């Protein structure tokens, strides 16, 4: 009796619920799959960011305490216990004047970031007001054949970023226009390849600083008479020269290692040399050329900061250097803000190049 009931229930379940249950399990499956993905791609990275911030916070706290203890001890040794107590209470009170100067905490960095944005807005408003104010005057000056008055206030943080991007793109384009044609020519001729190889091998590892000095020597003389922006010219040429090697080497390699079958097809069809280069060799080496360009752009971005710092051309590099020299209470946290901005922009540039690289790569399986 009992058995038959259970059996009946089972059949009923199977008949009425088979479809819905399968749908349910399907839903569950996709949900499960999604939640796993969600966990891996969103929750875990978020969690690791939190851990990172936590460690950073604790670390900066420890450094802060070390620096504070040192300061109090110094006051004690030099000026006696009263001064030490004063310093201690001053530090505890949070007075800016006596805060220990060390690794800033995440909160301080966040505040600096906001203050930099606010500063940018203020400068932008100031600039707009200036332009409006001088609009009529400038028109008059133009009519009289004089130079218009331009805004000469200090650049904001965002302006610095834009200047850096401008410089890196100018340098990148320079690298592109030098490295690809030379790479193609070297790649096509084994004789030229071996005659240029030593030059590439020697100059490739040279430090950006030395390139900067070399460019400085040449550009200084060449721009003596003109009133062009020589700091910008020096830094973008240096960036281009430092970063072009990856593209040069990759282009030469891509061109020289074209699949022999393609070359044979070109030979059987008796393609002319120009047609061979543009229809067979260049397209087949495009993926490698773009790999080179991607490395070039990331190298360009990396050396740019050092070069700006040395060439004293405006941009993120000089921003970092000025803040370091400045030594104000929030300077350190501004440097950390710049660090993150540099990192994030570098990452975005790399992503853009990767996307382009995947677009031109004819073999989708080979994409990185």
């Amino acid at each position, binding site marked *: 009796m009992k058995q038959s009931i259970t059996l009946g229930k089972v059949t009923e379940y199977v008949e009425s619920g088979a479809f819905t249950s399968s749908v349910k399990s399907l839903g569950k499956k996709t949900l499960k799959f999604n939640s796993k993905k969600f966990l891996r791609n969103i929750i875990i990275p978020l969690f690791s960011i939190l851990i990172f911030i936590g460690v950073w916070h604790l670390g900066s706290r420890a450094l802060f305490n070390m620096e504070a203890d040192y300061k109090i001890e110094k006051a004690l040794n030099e000026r006696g216990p009263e001064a030490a107590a004063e310093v201690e209470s001053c530090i505890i009170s949070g007075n800016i004047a006596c805060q220990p100067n060390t690794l800033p905490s995440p909160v301080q960095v966040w505040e600096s970031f906001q203050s930099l944005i606010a500063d940018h807005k203020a400068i932008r408003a100031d600039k707009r007001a200036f332009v409006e104010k001088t609009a009529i005057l400038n028109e008059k000056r133009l009519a009289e054949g004089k130079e218009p008055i331009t805004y000469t206030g200090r650049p904001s943080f965002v302006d610095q970023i834009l200047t850096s991007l401008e410089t890196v793109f100018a340098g990148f384009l320079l690298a592109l226009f030098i490295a690809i044609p030379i790479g193609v020519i070297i790649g096509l001729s084994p004789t030229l390849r071996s005659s240029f190889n030593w030059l590439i091998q020697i100059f490739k590892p040279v430090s950006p600083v030395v390139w900067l000095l070399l460019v400085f020597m040449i550009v200084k003389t060449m721009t003596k008479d003109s009133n062009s922006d020589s700091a910008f010219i020096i830094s973008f040429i240096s960036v281009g020269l430092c970063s072009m090697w990856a593209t040069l080497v990759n282009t030469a390699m891509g061109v020289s290692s074209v*699949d022999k*079958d*393609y070359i*044979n*097809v070109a*030979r*059987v*069809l*008796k*393609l002319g040399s120009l047609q061979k280069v543009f*229809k*067979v060799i260049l*397209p*087949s080496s*495009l993926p490698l050329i773009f790999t080179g360009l991607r490395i070039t752009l990331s190298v360009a971005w990396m050396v740019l900061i050092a070069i700006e710092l040395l060439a004293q051309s405006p941009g993120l590099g000089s921003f970092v250097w000025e803040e370091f020299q400045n030594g104000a209470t929030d300077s350190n946290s501004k440097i950390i803000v710049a660090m993150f901005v540099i990192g994030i922009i570098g990452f975005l540039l790399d992503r853009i190049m990767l996307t382009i690289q995947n677009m031109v790569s*004819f*073999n*989708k399986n080979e994409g990185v």
Partner: protein
Amino acid sequence: MSTATIKDNKKAEITENGIFYPSSKIMLDLDDLKKVYPTPKGDYVVLEHLNLQIMREEFVTIIGHSGCGKTTMLSMIAGLNPISGGRIAVLGNPIKGPGPDRGVIFQSPSLMPWMTALQNVLLGVNQVFPHASKKERHEIAKYYLQKVGLDGAFDKKASELSQGMQQRVGIARAFAIKPKVLLLDEPFGMLDSLTRGELQDILIEIWNKEKITAVMVTHDVDEAIFLADRVVMMTSGPRAKIGDILKIDFQRPRTRKTVLEHEDYYTYRKHLIDFLEH
């Protein structure tokens, strides 16, 4: 435009250019051919005293053990591999390097993966028929792509096609340039047996129409018999030469079924296998 007009145009072009075929029946003449690769331990002779005459409109398959120099010989005929001694002549004229009068179907499809199927065929057609209008050239390329069964895949990137499909494009590309001699270097060696059969049928169907003198290297005995008028057997290297030639007297057009059911088929097959096993 119909195919007939394309063919007529082609014929007209040939006579206009003043190219006349000599009356001799020999299309391809290999005379005392020799191939030597210099090595640090002295010369390595791959081929020596190799003589072979191939008639017009003949389909010859070349069979032999791997490494015997079949492919070397074929790439020498194509002009891709320099000749160490002897002579290769097409219609009595010694060859000078590669050229579109000897179309090649390579072992790997060797399509430009960044081009579409149509562009790949056009690459050759544009080169061989520079005076034809753009429309005519497209017609030629499309005609041959249709012939190999790729009607719907003109604009597909070569890299998106399967290996078999790619080799179909390779066949279309070779026929579309209307070569005097067609050289096939184990063109179906990399395909699975089903696809191989399909492509053999397609190849022989186009060939029956065009009757282009063909030399095909293979190591598949059944393929060699099915396609060929003569099967040339090469001795094992080094110093490989022609060991034996077997005439296949099946009527054309052939189908796989009639060939397999023919009473002589197994005699031919045994002959080839006996040669290869000794």
